[in-house]
């Protein structure tokens, strides 16, 4: 028999649809494709609310339990996990209303806001690392900004091979430092076009090819960003002298102005005495 193109496309689509009979969910539509599965919007019949359902392709090692164990404002809460009639595993989680990071940046937020996003992602990573969970696939498509400005990091614990090349660390064995790489790549991604060299240097250090050359842990990277925001010297960037002076001047502007006023007053008096 022959299958026409339209039928083929239709079959391809329906074959992927999850069969939700026997669950409390009603399928509404596809939202997107994550690391190891497809995410659908569904309605929870019992609680009458919309949720996101992630249906996993093949059985990974307990991705749902992994995420459910983490409780953090930037990590999407898992409501339920189960097995579909066709054997695939799924889990239901909060449906995020908001924009993906790459689209959020289209609104041209200012630099402090961009750094805030990185900060939130970093906090989530630090929390996860302290619980032994590594993200492994950190990229703009996996970060969402909710309707209240809150930041979510999605798609945790994806296996190494599925990482996206541009944002994936080069080494084979992935551990915490690969997430450092990912965070650095994210930082570089959110930086606007004329950007401070100190931030570029931080991102570059986090993205060193040699894992040992990167920051040893996420809080270290965040501390660097904080130093930048406070106008203190950043370790990753050995700044030229004139820049260091400029920074010093901007931090201590008031004091310098007062000293200038004093000097000016003295000179004024000195010259006034002549007349």
């Amino acid at each position: 028999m022959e299958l026409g193109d339209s039928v083929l496309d239709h079959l391809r689509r329906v074959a992927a649809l999850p069969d939700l009979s026997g669950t409390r969910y009603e399928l509404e539509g596809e939202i997107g494709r994550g690391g190891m599965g497809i995410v659908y919007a569904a309605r929870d019949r019992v609680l009458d609310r919309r949720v996101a359902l992630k249906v996993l392709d093949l059985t990974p090692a307990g991705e749902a339990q992994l995420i459910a164990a983490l409780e953090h404002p930037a990590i999407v809460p898992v409501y339920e996990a189960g097995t579909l009639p066709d054997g695939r595993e799924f889990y239901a989680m909060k449906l995020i209303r908001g924009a993906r990071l790459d689209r959020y940046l289209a609104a041209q937020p200012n630099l402090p806001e961009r750094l805030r996003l990185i900060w939130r992602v970093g906090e989530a990573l630090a929390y996860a690392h302290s619980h032994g969970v590594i993200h492994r696939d950190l990229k703009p498509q996996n970060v969402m900004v909710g309707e209240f400005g809150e930041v979510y990091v999605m798609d945790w614990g994806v296996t190494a091979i599925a990482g996206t090349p541009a944002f994936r660390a080069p080494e084979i064995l992935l551990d915490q430092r690969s997430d450092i790489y990912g965070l650095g790549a994210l930082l570089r991604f959110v930086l606007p076009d004329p950007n401070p060299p100190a931030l570029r240097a931080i991102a570059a250090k986090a993205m060193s090819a040699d894992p040992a050359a990167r920051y040893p842990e996420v809080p270290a990277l965040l501390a660097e960003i904080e130093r930048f925001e406070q106008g203190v010297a950043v370790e990753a960037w050995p700044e030229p002298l004139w820049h260091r002076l400029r920074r010093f001047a901007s931090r201590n502007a008031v004091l310098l102005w007062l000293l200038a006023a004093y000097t000016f007053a003295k000179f004024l008096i000195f010259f006034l005495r002549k007349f």
Partner: protein
Amino acid sequence: MRNSMVGGSTMNKIVAGLLFGLLLGALDGATAWFYPEARPMLTSIMIGSSIKGMIVGLFSGWFARKVQSTAWGIVVGSALGLLFAFLVAAMDATKGKPHYLEIMLPGFVVGAIIGFLTQRIGTRHLAKQRTP
């Protein structure tokens, strides 16, 4: 979330005020060296200036413990500086030629600096403060 405390010192503001006042007062007094007629009395000028500075520093530090505002600190400091400089200049005027401008203008600015510094440096409470 993030607190920028310069140095994280455990010195309280009144002490800080006294120290700054002493230092800046002495330096301000030392500039009298550029005026040849004042040079012979340099030592007494410096002492007087230091005391003036310390008094201004004392009050500024006390004020800084009560009110946390860089702007107001500058205002109070400069007002105090002006006041005490005026007193000194008045005392000096009885001795001979008045030098109101030479004393009050720098005194005003030094007071402002002392006011600023007491706002930024030193702790408000008696107990040692933990670094953030």
